[in-house]
């Protein structure tokens, strides 16, 4: 610790395994699988390499007992798995034997050695308590740093609402935008509190091309939120509380930020007929003919919610209650809006009436336009058990929600849920309960099931 130097965490490069894997030719997929298996085996071997502390403890024990007959018992008091503990036990026995000890029953032994595998927050601590026949006792210790924890594997659950991991990093992720120039994404932008990082898909890996710092004078509010919005004549607009940033329209790419209370768009550009620079061929999502009028809302510059002031007005409503998120469903003659209000209820507003309801939803909702079901679904976050949140898709045959998907569970708390620019998918950001790391997922409706 003495020589420690603090540096900012470097984001993990997360392979979007499912998505990019599917882009590979078959032989390459097999090769990649073999490669991954090899890496996995190597990691396993590396994780189980206890040789140095085993040798160290064995030498210490021999220094006390000398060569001869000893009785040894082992006890695992640590979080080591039974298998790892057995590996350590075997390694220690081998090391002790190599140094001249042989193992006998307690009543035949010149010394009894109790070896405990223990731990503290930073290290594994292995302890040998030695009782010799002369009544002498000794306590010997060695320690070895604990390896960094690995993420527990998660089971994938077959769902109609599918989640695909996009990106993972230790810093908070506010939003992720996949920038598609053709049918497949080739660029990705990741918004965190201090920068927009641009990645390019090369050889199946996201390689960082540029990190554009975000300039801001005031401290960010807690529970910071932000949005990446692909723009018409430049790459991206970045909406943050009290700050608006835009990428330069020419190279080299830079990010110009200024204090701003401009309202944030609530509707993806492609759904209201915009032609975006990053989607030259996209047009309306899924070839839909629906064009939804743009709606924007002002975001409180020092808080985590929208103030409730809308532009343009929503029918007769210029303001709605303060809200965290909004979703919409186009109807024949009007658009039905849902606002997750800070006071806890969902306000369903059609331009003429405001109905406050309590459906047990969380504070993050959004909507997607898909080719599935009724064509539009509202995605709403709910709390699962204490360790995971979940998202479920709903449709509204009338004025009450009908769940149209199973719940998709996430390994932590949902911190962001935004519709993507094309309008047919959404991005959810989750903070792992155990790891604290942030992971962004794309949510897509699988309508062929």
């Amino acid at each position, binding site marked *: *610790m*003495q*020589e*420690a*130097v*603090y*540096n900012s965490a470097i984001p993990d490069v997360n392979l979007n395994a499912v998505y990019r894997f599917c882009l590979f030719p078959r032989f390459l997929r097999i090769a990649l699988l073999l490669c991954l298996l090899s890496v996995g085996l190597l990691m396993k071997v590396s994780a189980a390499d206890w040789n140095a502390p085993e040798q160290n403890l064995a030498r210490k024990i021999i220094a006390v007992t000398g060569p001869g007959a000893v009785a040894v018992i082992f006890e695992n*008091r640590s*979080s*080591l*798995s039974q298998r790892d503990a057995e590996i350590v036990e075997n390694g220690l026995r081998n090391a002790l034997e190599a140094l001249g000890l042989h193992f006998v029953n307690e009543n035949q032994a010149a010394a009894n050695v109790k070896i*405990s595998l*223990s*731990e*503290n*927050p*930073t*290290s*594994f*601590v292995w*302890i040998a*308590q030695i009782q010799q026949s002369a009544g002498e006792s000794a*306590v010997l*210790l*060695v*320690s070895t740093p604990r390896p960094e924890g*690995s993420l*527990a594997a998660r089971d994938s659950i077959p769902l109609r609402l599918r989640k695909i991991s996009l990106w993972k990093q230790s810093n908070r992720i506010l939003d992720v935008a996949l920038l598609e120039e053709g049918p497949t994404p080739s660029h990705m932008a990741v918004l965190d509190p201090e920068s927009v990082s641009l990645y390019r898909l090369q050889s199946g890996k996201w390689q960082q091309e540029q990190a554009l710092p975000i300039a801001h*004078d*005031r*401290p*960010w*509010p*807690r*529970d*910071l939120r932000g949005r990446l919005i692909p723009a018409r004549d430049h790459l991206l607009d970045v909406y943050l509380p009290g700050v608006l940033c835009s990428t330069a329209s020419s190279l080299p790419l830079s990010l110009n930020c200024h204090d701003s209370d401009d309202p944030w768009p609530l509707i993806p550009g492609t759904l209201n007929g915009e032609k975006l620079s990053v989607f030259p061929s996209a047009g309306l999502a899924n070839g839909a003919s629906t064009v939804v009028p743009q709606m924007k809302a002002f975001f409180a510059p*020092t*808080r*985590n*919610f929208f103030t409730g002031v809308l532009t343009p007005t929503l029918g007769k409503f210029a303001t709605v209650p303060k809200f*965290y998120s909004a979703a919409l469903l186009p109807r024949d003659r009007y658009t039905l809006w849902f606002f997750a209000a*800070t*006071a*806890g*209820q969902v306000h369903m507003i059609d331009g003429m009436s405001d109905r406050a309801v*309590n459906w*047990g*939803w*969380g*504070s*993050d909702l959004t909507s997607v336009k898909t080719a599935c079901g009724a064509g539009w679904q509202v995605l709403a*976050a*709910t*709390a699962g*058990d*204490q360790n995971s*949140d979940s998202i479920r898709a709903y449709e509204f045959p009338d004025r009450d929600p009908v769940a149209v998907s199973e719940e998709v569970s996430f390994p932590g*708390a*949902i911190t962001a849920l935004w519709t993507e620019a094309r309008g047919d998918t959404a991005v959810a950001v989750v903070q792992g309960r155990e790891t604290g790391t942030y992971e962004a997922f794309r949510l897509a409706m699988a309508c062929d099931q």
Partner: protein
Amino acid sequence: MKLFAWRWLAISSLLLAGAAGQPETRPQYGGTLRIMMQARLDSLNPAAATQADSFAERSIMRMVFDTLIILDDNGRPQPVLATSWQSAGKSQPWRFLLRNGVRFHDGTVLTAESAAASLRAANPNWEVTADGGSVVIQCDCPNLLSELALPRNSIIKNDSNERPTGTGPFRIVEWQTGAKLTLAANEDYWGGRPFLDLIEIEMGKSFRDQFTTLELGRADLVEVAPEQAHRLSLGDAHLVSSLPMELAALVFARDAQTDDEKSLRAALALSIDRGSMRSVLLQGAGQPAASLLPNWMSGYAFVFPAEPDLSLARRERSQVRTIPTWTLGYDANDSLERLLADRVALNAKDAGLSLQPTSASTADLRLTRIPLASADPWIALTEMSATVGLPVQNISSNSVEDLYSAERAELETQKIIPLFHLPMMYASSSALKNWTLRPDGSWNLADAWLENKPR
């Protein structure tokens, strides 16, 4: 994967009813958090030498003041007012680069000069200087980073009224010494304005009063005596337990002078039946301890046997011809201490010793509860040594082996007999969300929020 036990403990929140299955909501801004505590703080200066360390004090200091760094759950230093730090090597000065744009609650800007002055005042033996935007520290302190994370090394500055002001997430609004403290959100906090608007803290409240107030809905966060936790009917409230961060121990007023005295102290240590005390008096709370540091912190505490050995105790006692009657002091306001003192005296009697419990301020030995200063074992051990009056061990390295040797040497002085490692326990209302305990047992309320109503 098998979970690491202390991590489990750190997050052990017993959700007894109510909130399960509530929909997730974003943190909500606003509201007044009402806290009650038993301690009465007589100063809000984190460097005040007159005030005994307590978890309540740590919690309040960390709300009002910031340190340069803080230790995370794994004992690793994390940036607070310092954004980076480095040292050229052992015995070389450390350089801490300060965060830009931080202001004290009185509006003045945090500078390297003000930070250096604060650290110099708290540590007269350190050589602390300002160099541009950095603070440079030269000292003979092998665990400097962990020391800097202690609340007493908070960065403070006296305002125009000579009152200490900090840079923390909350600022002082009203302070009635030893009775009531009101804090308000620091709107310009560098880490983001806290969600709560106000925190009202009432001091000097008994555990019973605290819990009754919680039950009546007039408090949101109260302390719970570990030995009473199992009896509480919590309703919608949550019970949260820290790691064992407090040592209950017998501390002798003076060093053992003669071999007879050493034998009697050994006999006393061997006579104590911690297991039955834990079952009966602590109602299963805490961990019997014969070590100074808890096992989660050191990894080796179990090698110090905590089981009684009455025959060996009697043998030790039999080596002494004249048995004195020792007075055993306890805090009359602490019912647990009184019960434990009585039981220790009974155990001692079984070994042929004579102990007289007393609530008088002077005694031959005293039942004491010592908060561990830090989650860093070296800091915890050295601070405890200073508190109890044990010889401070030289630190040659930060290895577990040296830590064990140092702790063993302290125990061999026979000035202290550990009894239990106790957790801190709190009950909170169901409306209070996302509050956590730091590894040093202090509350983290900067991210806490109050739910207006169920969604």
